[in-house]
């Protein structure tokens, strides 16, 4: 069973004083997220990521289309007991302490009274807020608020977790912890749908990603597939800064960093390069196929979109 099925959800806002200027925030979106996967929803700022998440959470109503979450209609309030949501740049009731906030959310999520304290203590430990559990949230830093936000999203042990820019506001250690947490959630069999514009996070974590730009889906696929398309090129690295004349003759540009030199060559130049290194008694370190990075794929999709928009204009 798919964890999320988005069936042509679209959103058009009416702008202007008389609300007569339609502004399309999301074009009809078809997307399926499988059970148990980490799915990255990528796009630049203002691409429609948050609108999609708000639609799925029932915070805004779609102009058309529908969705199914965990096999139920997305507007079914009961399905929400099985999902967790971290909004972008979360802000909470700042007059509450972290413990009180989590207790309130546990009550609203229907966590049994005899399990609340245990669950709250567990998630406070998990996000590293145990020491400040009794401190009012108005005294929290941005990073601490983000941690509280993550805690409330996983508090009720949901099957599906939506995270909107979960690394936002976190320091490098915090980001690492969130990455570990997301992987831990996957290991527990949970589905994680997270939006981000930080591609390295997506590349490190996601099983599949979708790219959205200007409200339109531009591409979707497994990260491994997107980044494993060999470009017919290899990278050769060896010890030393000496560059064999035979490699120079191939016309490729060599780069030396410290005691290591690397060069990108066509696949059919591989044997010539190895022979040249052997002749000059240089020690070969590696020959690796050059892969497309997620960033390159992302930029390509965005450029395609802009080119086609320019052509239409």
């Amino acid at each position: 069973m798919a964890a999320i099925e988005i069936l042509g959800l679209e959103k058009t806002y009416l702008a202007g004083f008389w609300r007569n200027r339609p502004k399309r925030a999301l074009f009809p979106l078809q997307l399926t997220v499988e059970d148990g996967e980490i799915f990255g929803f990528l796009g630049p700022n203002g691409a429609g990521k948050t609108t999609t998440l708000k639609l799925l959470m029932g915070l805004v109503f779609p102009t058309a289309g529908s969705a199914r979450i965990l096999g139920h209609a997305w507007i079914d309030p009961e399905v929400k007991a099985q999902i967790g949501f971290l909004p972008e740049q979360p802000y909470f009731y700042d007059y509450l302490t972290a413990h009180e906030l989590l207790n309130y959310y546990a009550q609203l999520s229907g966590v049994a009274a005899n399990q609340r304290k245990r669950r709250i203590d567990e998630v406070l430990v998990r996000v590293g807020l145990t020491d400040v559990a009794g401190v009012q949230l108005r005294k929290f830093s941005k990073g601490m608020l983000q941690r509280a936000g993550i805690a409330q999203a996983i508090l009720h042990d949901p099957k599906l977790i939506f995270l909107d820019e979960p690394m936002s506001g976190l320091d490098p250690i915090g980001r690492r912890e969130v990455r570990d947490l997301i992987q831990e959630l996957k290991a527990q069999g949970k589905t994680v749908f997270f939006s981000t514009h930080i591609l390295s996070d997506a590349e490190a974590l996601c099983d599949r990603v979708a790219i959205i730009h200007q409200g339109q889906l531009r591409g979707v696929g497994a990260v491994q597939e997107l980044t494993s398309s060999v470009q017919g090129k290899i990278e050769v690295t060896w010890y030393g800064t000496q560059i064999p004349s035979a490699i120079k003759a191939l016309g490729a540009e060599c780069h030396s960093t410290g005691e290591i030199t690397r060069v990108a060559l066509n696949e059919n130049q591989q044997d010539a390069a190895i022979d040249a290194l052997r002749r000059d008694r240089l020690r070969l370190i590696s020959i690796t196929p050059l892969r497309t990075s997620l960033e390159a794929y992302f930029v390509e999709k965005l450029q395609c979109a802009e080119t086609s928009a320019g052509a239409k204009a």
Partner: protein
Amino acid sequence: MSARLWHIASNTFREAVRDRVLYNLVAFAILLSGAAILVGQISISIEKLVVINLGLTTVSLFGVVIAIFVGIGLVSKEIEKRTLYTVLSRPVRRWEFIVGKFFGLAGTLVVNTFFMAIGVFVALFYVAHKFTRPDALIFVALYFIILEFLIICALALLFSSFSTPLLSAVFAFSLFVIGTYADDLRAFAGMTTGITRWITSGLAYVVPNFSAFNVISAVAHGEPLSTVLILHNTIYALFYSGLALSGAVLVFEHRNLK
């Protein structure tokens, strides 16, 4: 009442307490004790009249100000600060959120009124040195004040569900003022003819009739209040606040939380 509704109501009450809304009790205590000491010294045999009038009017005014200014922020503040996102992404119905907020604010006002009522009775005992049977009518006046608060809370929530805090405050306060003179508006409607009569009569019956709830002067003079009035006011307040609350729910159910 559903458990979620109760949790939202108690959180609203906690917010009011922690945001120091109940600090108004200090101002009330200072005002009333000062007034009691002053009238005790300068007035002759009308001390009770002054204390009851001043005390109950202050209870009403302080409560109205809290109902309007807290009420108008109940929904808009949650949207503006986006605290609503993490509430509505849980198994919470939108109507439960609105009704929970209403009960939370109403509860705050009842507690506030309870402590102010203690202040009124203490001041009364200070100037009269004893309680008499007609003093029990103060409870009826306080009950009417609370009914008045229910209507204002529901109206503030209604305006807050679709308008900005500033406009909501203007609407709610205007309705309170017009409603206070609803009897005069009805009398004026009776004196007009034609379309003016239709409009003023319609307006007079649409605005909340707060003048029916104002029995402070009668209570201060020890005049009896009929059971029918209590019954009518109870039904009217429940009906009017229920209607305004339903309107707030209806608007909020269809609102996009951008």
